[in-house]
């Protein structure tokens, strides 16, 4: 994994304020452009000026009730998945880590499916789905965290293995439910397995934004410590980093973020994996730049993927998770091999 060679192999090894501003500024401009394009296009052609001026117009209803919340949720979920993915990769010092591999996503999806499936039989509201998903994501995280410890210390490899096993377990429970419900509900369950950004309410956006903001802020605050941890556990400890506390913090912050996002969007794969690696390949592994850059790029990437999902067979739709995997995988391989099989470095 060539962790040691990573820093020196980059053209610009040192992070300066000017470089941060340049990179993040450019990414912010791109994200803004992507958001505008995504808001301007959809299954139905609308007149944006009329939508803004006339609240009684169908254009207004389409923009405000369907398109805008969806684009915003896409940006939010993409930002969360990419930021949390970058932090988790530093935590377990493994380039394959993301919310999916640690079981957080599958737990959230399983929790969200329960009220959706049983609302009709038990008389509980479908609106409980995100809450149930979030609670189960936290419970699962707690278990993975407990079981990932070796002699009282969080062991990255054990954590990854336990996470992968939990991911399989929660996914199996989802498939079990899928086999017990009637045929008309199975497509709804499949949608949670691949991920979908359909029809969020502004309340849901707010509920995801709060843990996302809190978790990201905590991670940015500890970006320097993340650098040391990604490099070597021992040197981080020698330099005065509370390694155990840091690991706990990363795990809690990322779980809260991913749990909130997945309980409204389902298991959208690849974003948490691809985006951080692209940023590392292009701008290096320094978390002070990596985390905000992953946030901006993740948001843009998912909004573009969802735009394709919305337009490809309009007015019918594709699940966005299919698009992220279809576009993301070949593009990632291309970038990885372009400069002659460079190591995937943390």
């Amino acid at each position, binding site marked *: 994994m060539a962790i040691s060679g990573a820093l020196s192999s980059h053209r610009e090894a040192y992070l300066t304020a000017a470089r941060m501003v340049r990179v993040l500024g450019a990414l912010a401009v791109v994200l803004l452009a992507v958001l505008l394009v995504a808001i301007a296009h959809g*299954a*139905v052609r609308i007149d944006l000026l009329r939508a803004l001026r006339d609240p009684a117009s169908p254009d207004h209803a*389409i923009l*405000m009730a*369907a398109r805008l919340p969806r684009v915003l949720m896409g940006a939010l979920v993409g930002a969360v998945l990419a930021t949390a993915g970058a932090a988790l990769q530093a935590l377990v010092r493994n380039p394959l880590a993301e919310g999916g591999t640690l079981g957080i996503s599958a737990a959230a999806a399983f929790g969200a499916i329960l009220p959706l499936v049983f609302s009709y039989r038990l008389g509980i509201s479908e609106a409980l789905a995100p809450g149930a998903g979030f609670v189960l994501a936290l419970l699962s995280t707690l278990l993975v965290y407990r079981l990932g410890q070796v002699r009282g210390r969080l062991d990255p490899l054990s954590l990854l293995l336990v996470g992968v096993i939990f991911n399989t377990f929660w996914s199996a429970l989802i498939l079990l439910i899928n086999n017990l419900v009637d045929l008309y509900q199975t*497509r709804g369950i499949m949608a949670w397995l691949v991920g979908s950004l*359909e*029809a969020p309410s502004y309340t849901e956006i707010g509920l995801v934004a709060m843990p996302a903001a809190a978790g990201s802020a905590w991670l940015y605050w500890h970006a320097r410590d993340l650098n040391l941890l990604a490099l070597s556990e021992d040197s981080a400890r020698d330099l005065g980093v509370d390694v155990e506390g840091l690991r706990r913090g990363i795990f809690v912050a990322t779980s809260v973020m991913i749990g909130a996002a997945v309980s409204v969007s389902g298991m959208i794969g690849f974003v948490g994996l691809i985006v951080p690696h692209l940023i590392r390949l292009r701008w290096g592994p320094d978390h002070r730049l990596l985390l905000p850059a992953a946030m901006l790029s993740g948001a843009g990437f998912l909004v573009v993927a969802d735009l394709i999902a*919305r337009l490809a067979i309009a007015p*019918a739709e594709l699940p966005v998770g299919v698009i992220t995997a279809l576009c993301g995988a070949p593009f990632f391989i291309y970038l990885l091999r372009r400069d002659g099989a460079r190591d995937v470095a943390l």
Partner: protein
Amino acid sequence: MIACACSCHHGRLGPLVAVILCVTSSAAAWGAAAPRIVSLAPSTTEILFAVGAGPEVVAVSNYCDYPPQVRKLPRVGSFLEPNIEAIAGLRPTLIVGLASAANERAVRGLAAMGFSLMLTRDDSIAAIEQAIIEIGARTGHRERAAAVVAAIREQIATVQARLRGRSAPRVLMVVGHAPLIAVGGGYLGQLLELADSINIAAGLGQAWPRLSLEYVIAQAPAVILDGRRGDTAALDSFWLRYQAGRFGPKVVGYPLSPVLHPGPRIGQSLAIIAALIHPEAFAPAYHGAR
């Protein structure tokens, strides 16, 4: 048991004779035995009971719930994933299921074991009627089957007579909220057409399209038929979000059974759908359906 008894009695006549005798006698006993039918889909189960072959049904699929007496029968998987061991153990004389590309392997497995297999379709009114006729013929209930089809046609004619001269509203029929899955084609699409309505999800080339909400708002259906998963308040608040000032559809729930069950009750389903879309055209009794 018969085979075993045969080989004991005729053992001294030589193995060849014994085998021939055993095979013929057991085959005769098999042919004479009471029919044992396994049904692999809700629609085929309903048809079997409607044509009068119900007493011969020994097992049904996991999804079967109508008529009520099928709830007591053993379950042997679904038409997509039949439990081959359980089915073989029941020694069925006939297995009735649905033709589907997704269950080809399971069907081939059952056929290879020597079971007689009958595959039908339930994705259009014509296919359902054909399935009723064919299942009736295969189980020796031709007249009852013809009567069931005649009854469906009469129910359709009655509904159409009531609707004559009414304008067709734009309608959306959904079976799921997250994602929004609508009725595009299939037998339900045909029922929407017969119920004198314009289905906004028709013509997309999919029987169950996953529909864009933007499209729903732009098409502004006058009536939304919702499968009512969850309580009334959740249903109303879900659609309220998209009515945003202008577009205020009448949202009505439909009973999942019989509406989502293709089979002999499609005439009844049509009457329910038509009454929900055109309540003014139907007797007050139908208003209770909401």
